[in-house]
C-alpha cells in the first residue's frame, strides 16, 4: 500500500517558478520512447526509455596489400556516433509535478508513444492533469505488481543493490553480493499499512499477509500525540527520545529475576505501559520514540512469523516508512534480529523508491523485452543513495535533494557468471572494500583527485580537432570531482566503494562528455611499435632452453605491466629503441622470490602435468603487454596443445586492449607467425569480448558468449593479468579450475599495504582443492 496521503494540500500552490537545468535532469527527452509514472503521497517518480547518441571510437584495419606499411599507422581510428538505449528515472516532490509535465511537453519531439503507465496512490489524483498536459492516455497499473516487477529488475541488474543496515558498526551499509538466484524472497512494504508479499518467480507472487500498523500509524498516531505534522519531523523527534520513560519494561513488571523467563529486563513488556495516567506529562520525543519502537517491533515480529511459516530467510523492506531513513532501518533490523534470533536478515534496497516506477515502466515495455537484456547502472547519470539525515550530511542537498536520478544503460549483450566460479553466490570481485576501510578510502579518493587534472588534460588532448574538447574536458573534470566529493561524504552512495567503482565512475563520466577513448591514439601507436618487435622477441625466446623459456615468458607477461606506457617519456624510448624498452621493463621487475610467488609450482605443473585443455586469458594493456607479453605466452600454450580463449574488453577503458583492437593485432601477428596463424584457422585460438568496459574485472558479469565458449571448450586454466583485474579485483577469487593471477604493483601505497615495494611482483598460481 503505497498511499502516502497527508501532504496533498500543496496542490493549489504549485511552484511554477523553478527552472529546470535540462542538461542535468530530464536528459535525452527528445528521443524518449515510453513513459511511466509512479505518484506517491509526496514524491513522483517518472521513468522513460530513451536512446542516447554518444561517440564511440572504432578501429578498422587498413588494406595493407602492396603498400609500404613502414610509416603508416597499424589501423584507422574513427569516432562514430552510436545509439544505445538508456532508462531514465527521476524522482521529485509532487509540488513540482506541473512544472515537470510542462517541461516534458516542451521537449518531447520524437515520441510516438500514446500512453503513459501510471501507478501509486496519487495516480488517480493527477490523472487528468497528466492527460491534459502531455496528451497521453493514463493507463493504471496495480501498485504491488509494479513494486515486485521493479524489485526483481533491480535485484537482477544492479550490483550492490541490496544492503543490510548496521548502525553501530563502522560500515553502516553492508552491501550484499547479488545471488544468481534471487527467488524466493519476502517483500515487506511499509507504506501507510504493511503488505507482506512472497515472491517465488518473475511472475509468481502472493500476498500472504499484512498489518494495519504501519507508517500511517506512526504518522497519524504520532501527529495526535506530539502535534508534529510532518513524517520526517516525527522521525527526528523519535531519534532524540527515550522510550523507557513511556514504555513499561520487563524489569518494571517482573522485578529482578526475569531472566528465568528467558527475557532480558530491558525488553518492552508493555508499549506505553507507563503512560497509563492522566496527570503526568510525557515529552514529545519520548512518545515518538516509544511509538517508533512499538511499530517497528510489531512489523518485525509479524515479518518473522511469516518468514518462518513460509520458510524464507531473506526479507526486503521498502515503503515510505523505510525509504533511506537510518532511524527506521535501524529499528526494523533490530526487531528482525531479535524475533528471528539472527536467522532472518532484514535487507534494504538502494533504489527502493524507484521500484514502482521501474515496474510500471516494464509493464509498458513488455514488447521491447527489457528482461532479455542486461542493464548497467550509469554512475555518471545517477544520484546515488543519499543519506536523508541532514544532521549527518549537510552538504550538497540543494538540487540532488529535489531531483534524484537513476540511469541505466542497456548493455549490448546479456551478462552472466563465469561458469568456473567456485561459488557465484559468495564471489566478491573487489579485494578491498573502501566503505569498510577508512584509511584505504582516504588514500584512493585523494589518489583519484590528484590524477584528475591529468586525466582531463589527456581527454582534451585526445581530440585535438574538436573545438569544444577543452570545454567538455572541464565539464568532465567538474563532474568527476563532484562524484569524488559525494563519495567522501557518503561512501555507500553507489554500493560498496571500491577502486573498481572509482575507475568505472571515471569511465562513465568520460563517456558522458564524449571522450569515449582518450587513449585510442596512444594505443594505436604502441600496438604498431610492439608489432615491429614481435618476431625478434619470438626468435630470442625460441633460442632458450625449455625451462629458461618458461621463465622468460612469465617475465614477459609481467613486463608489459611495468610502465605506464601512456607516458610520453616511455613512448619516446619505445619509438627509438622498442626492444630496449621491453628489456628495461624486465630489468625493473623484482628479483625472485616475488612478493607472492608460486612460480615453482607453476613450472612443475607445466613440466609434469598434461597440457591444459583450454586456457582463458583476460588481457590487460595494449601494445607491449598484449603483443610481446601475452602473445608469446599464448603461442607457447598453443604449442603444448592447449586451446586458448583470449578475452578482451568490449569497450575502451584506459589503455586496455579492446576486442576490436585485439582482432587487428591478432590478424597482424598471424601474418608473421605460423603457430598463431594455424591456431586461428583451426579455431584453437579464439578471440572473445568480456562484455565489460572496465579496467577491472567482475567475473559475475561476463559476456554470455564467453561463458558458453568456456563451457564448450572445457576450460581448465584461467589467466588474469594486471593490477586492475588481478589485484584490485579477483585477488581472492576462487575458481573451480587452475588459475594464474599475475601483476606488477605500480602503486607504492598498495605495495606497502601488501608488504612489498613498488614494482613488486604478484605471481599467484592456484589449484582448486579436491
Amino acid at each position, binding site marked *: 500500500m503505497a498511499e502516502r496521503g497527508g501532504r496533498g494540500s500543496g496542490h493549489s500552490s504549485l511552484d511554477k517558478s523553478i527552472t529546470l537545468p535540462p542538461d542535468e535532469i530530464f536528459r535525452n527527452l527528445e528521443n524518449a520512447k515510453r513513459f511511466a509514472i509512479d505518484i506517491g503521497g509526496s514524491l513522483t517518480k517518472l521513468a522513460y526509455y530513451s536512446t542516447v547518441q554518444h561517440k564511440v571510437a572504432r578501429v578498422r584495419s587498413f588494406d595493407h596489400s602492396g603498400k609500404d606499411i613502414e610509416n603508416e599507422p597499424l589501423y584507422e581510428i574513427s569516432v562514430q556516433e552510436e545509439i544505445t538505449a538508456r532508462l531514465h528515472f527521476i524522482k521529485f516532490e509532487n509540488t513540482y509535478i506541473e512544472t515537470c509535465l510542462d517541461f516534458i511537453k516542451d521537449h518531447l519531439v520524437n515520441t510516438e508513444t500514446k500512453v503513459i503507465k501510471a501507478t501509486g496512490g496519487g495516480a488517480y489524483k493527477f490523472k487528468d492533469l497528466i492527460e491534459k498536459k502531455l496528451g497521453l492516455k493514463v493507463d493504471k497499473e496495480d501498485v504491488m505488481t509494479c513494486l515486485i516487477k521493479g524489485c526483481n529488475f533491480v535485484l537482477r541488474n544492479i550490483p550492490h543493490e541490496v544492503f543490510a543496515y548496521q548502525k553501530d558498526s563502522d560500515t553502516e551499509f553492508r552491501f550484499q553480493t547479488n545471488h544468481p538466484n534471487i527467488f524466493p524472497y519476502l517483500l515487506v512494504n511499509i507504506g501507510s499499512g504493511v503488505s507482506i508479499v512472497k515472491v517465488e518467480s518473475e511472475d509468481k507472487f502472493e*500476498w500472504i499477509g499484512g498489518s*494495519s500498523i504501519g507508517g*500511517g500509524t506512526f504518522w497519524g498516531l504520532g501527529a495526535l500525540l506530539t502535534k508534529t505534522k510532518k513524517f520526517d519531523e516525527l522521525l527526528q523527534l523519535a531519534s532524540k527520545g527515550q522510550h523507557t520513560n513511556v514504555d513499561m519494561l520487563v524489569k518494571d513488571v517482573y522485578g529482578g*529475576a526475569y531472566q528465568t523467563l528467558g527475557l532480558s529486563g530491558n525488553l518492552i513488556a508493555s508499549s506505553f505501559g507507563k*503512560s497509563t495516567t492522566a496527570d503526568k506529562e510525557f515529552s514529545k520525543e519520548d512518545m515518538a520514540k516509544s511509538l517508533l519502537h512499538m511499530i517497528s517491533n*510489531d512489523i518485525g*515480529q509479524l515479518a518473522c512469523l511469516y518468514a518462518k511459516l513460509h520458510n524464507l530467510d531473506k526479507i526486503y523492506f521498502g515503503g515510505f516508512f523505510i525509504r533511506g531513513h537510518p532511524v527506521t532501518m535501524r529499528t526494523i533490523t533490530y526487531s528482525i534480529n531479535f524475533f528471528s534470533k539472527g536467522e532472518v536478515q532484514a535487507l534494504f534496497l538502494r533504489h527502493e523508491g524507484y521500484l514502482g516506477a521501474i515496474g510500471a515502466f516494464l509493464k509498458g515495455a513488455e514488447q521491447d523485452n527489457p528482461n532479455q537484456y542486461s542493464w548497467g547502472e550509469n554512475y555518471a547519470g545517477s544520484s546515488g543513495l543519499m543519506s536523508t539525515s541532514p544532521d549527518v550530511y549537510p552538504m550538497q542537498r540543494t538540487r540532488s535533494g529535489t531531483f534524484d536520478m537513476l540511469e541505466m544503460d542497456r548493455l549490448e549483450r546479456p551478462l552472466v557468471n563465469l561458469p568456473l566460479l567456485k561459488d557465484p553466490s559468495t564471489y566478491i570481485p573487489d579485494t578491498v572494500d573502501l566503505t569498510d576501510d577508512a584509511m584505504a578510502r582516504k588514500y584512493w579518493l585523494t589518489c583519484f583527485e590528484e590524477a584528475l587534472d591529468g586525466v582531463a588534460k589527456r581527454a582534451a588532448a585526445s581530440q585535438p580537432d574538436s573545438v569544444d574538447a577543452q570545454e567538455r574536458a572541464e565539464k568532465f573534470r567538474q563532474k568527476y570531482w563532484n562524484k569524488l566529493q559525494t563519495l567522501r561524504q557518503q561512501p555507500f552512495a553507489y554500493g560498496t566503494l571500491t577502486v573498481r567503482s572509482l575507475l568505472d565512475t571515471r569511465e562513465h563520466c568520460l563517456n558522458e562528455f564524449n571522450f569515449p577513448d582518450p587513449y585510442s591514439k596512444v594505443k594505436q601507436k604502441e600496438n604498431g611499435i610492439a608489432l615491429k618487435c614481435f618476431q625478434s622477441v619470438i626468435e630470442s625466446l625460441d633460442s632458450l632452453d625449455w625451462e629458461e623459456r618458461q621463465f622468460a615468458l612469465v617475465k614477459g607477461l609481467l613486463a608489459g605491466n611495468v610502465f605506464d606506457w601512456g607516458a610520453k617519456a616511455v613512448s619516446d624510448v619505445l619509438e627509438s629503441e622498442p626492444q630496449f624498452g621491453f628489456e628495461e621493463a624486465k630489468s625493473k621487475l623484482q628479483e625472485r622470490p616475488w612478493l607472492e610467488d608460486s612460480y615453482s609450482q607453476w613450472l612443475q605443473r607445466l613440466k609434469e602435468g598434461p597440457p591444459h585443455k583450454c586456457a582463458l586469458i583476460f588481457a590487460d594493456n595494449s601494445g607491449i603487454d598484449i603483443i610481446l607479453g601475452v602473445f608469446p605466452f599464448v603461442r607457447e600454450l598453443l604449442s603444448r596443445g592447449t586451446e586458448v580463449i583470449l578475452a578482451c574488453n568490449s569497450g575502451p577503458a584506459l589503455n586496455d586492449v579492446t576486442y576490436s583492437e585485439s582482432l587487428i593485432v591478432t590478424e597482424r601477428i598471424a601474418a608473421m607467425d605460423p603457430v598463431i596463424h594455424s591456431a586461428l584457422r583451426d579455431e584453437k585460438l579464439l578471440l572473445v569480448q568480456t562484455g565489460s568496459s572496465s579496467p577491472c574485472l567482475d567475473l559475475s558479469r561476463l559476456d554470455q558468449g564467453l561463458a558458453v565458449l568456456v563451457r564448450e571448450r572445457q576450460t581448465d586454466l584461467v589467466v588474469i593479468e594486471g593490477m586492475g583485474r588481478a589485484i584490485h579485483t579477483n585477488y581472492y577469487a576462487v575458481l573451480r579450475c587452475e588459475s594464474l593471477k599475475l601483476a606488477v604493483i605500480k602503486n607504492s601505497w598498495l605495495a606497502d599495504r601488501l608488504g612489498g615495494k613498488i614494482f613488486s611482483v604478484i605471481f599467484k598460481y592456484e589449484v582448486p582443492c579436491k
Partner: protein
Amino acid sequence: MPAFIQMGSEKHFSSLHTTLCATGGGAYKFEQDFRTMGDLELCKLDELDCLVKGVLYIDSVGFNGHSECYYYENPTDNERCQKLPFNLENPYPLLLVNIGSGVSILAVYSKDNYKRVTGTSLGGGTFFGLCCLLTGCSTFEEALEMASHGDSTKVDKLVRDIYGGDYERFGLPGWAVASSFGNMMSKEKRESVSKEDLARATLITITNNIGSIARMCALNENINRVVFVGNFLRINTISMRLLAYALDYWSKGQLKALFLEHE
C-alpha cells in the same frame, strides 16, 4: 525450587554487579534489592503456572452443567451474536494468549508441558496508556466505556478508502483496516474525530494486532484452538468479539477463539 532460586540469584548477582558499581550503588543495598526482586519474580512465575493449571482444571470440570469455556457465534452481528459453551474434552494442544499490560503467548501440549512462544508489548497497557494520552481518561473502565461509543473508521484508513472497494488483486475486503490511525495523517481529519473515536480505534488496533500475532503463532505451532485470557478482556466484549471474528475470518474458519468465564 529454593536451590534453583539460589542458583539464579548467584548468577544474577554476578551479572548485575558491574552495573551497580558503575552507578555507585553499594553491594549491601544491592543484595537487599535483589532479595525483594527475587520474591517478586517467584510470585510472577507462580501466576503463569497457575494460569496454565487453571485453564486445564476448568476443562477437567467442564461438565458441571455450566461450561467455563465458551466461544462466540456470529460475533459481528449484534442481533444474532451469542456466547456458546465449548467442550474442551481433549484440550491439547492449545495456544494460550494471556493479555495483561503486555501479551504472552504460550503453547500448551500437556498438563506439565508448555512453552512461551512469543509475546508482544502491544497489550492492555498500550491500549490504556495510549487512551490516557489521547483522551485524558484515567481508568481502564473509562477508556473502555469511551471506546464503546466511538467509531474507529473515522480514525483508521480502510482498504476501501484507498481502493474504493475491495482490493481484489489480494483478496482484501474493503472493510479491512489498511492503516491504523491512517486517517490521522490528515490535519482536517485529526480535527474532526472525537475522543470516543480515538479510544475505539486504539482498542481495535491493539485487538486486531493481538489476533494477528496469535493467528500466526497458531499456524507456526500447528495448533487450531486459541484460548484468550487476561485482564484486558475483563468486561471487554468488543475485543473478545473482534478476536473471535478476526481469527475465524483470516484463518478461513480453521482457527477457533475460545474464552473463559472465570479466568
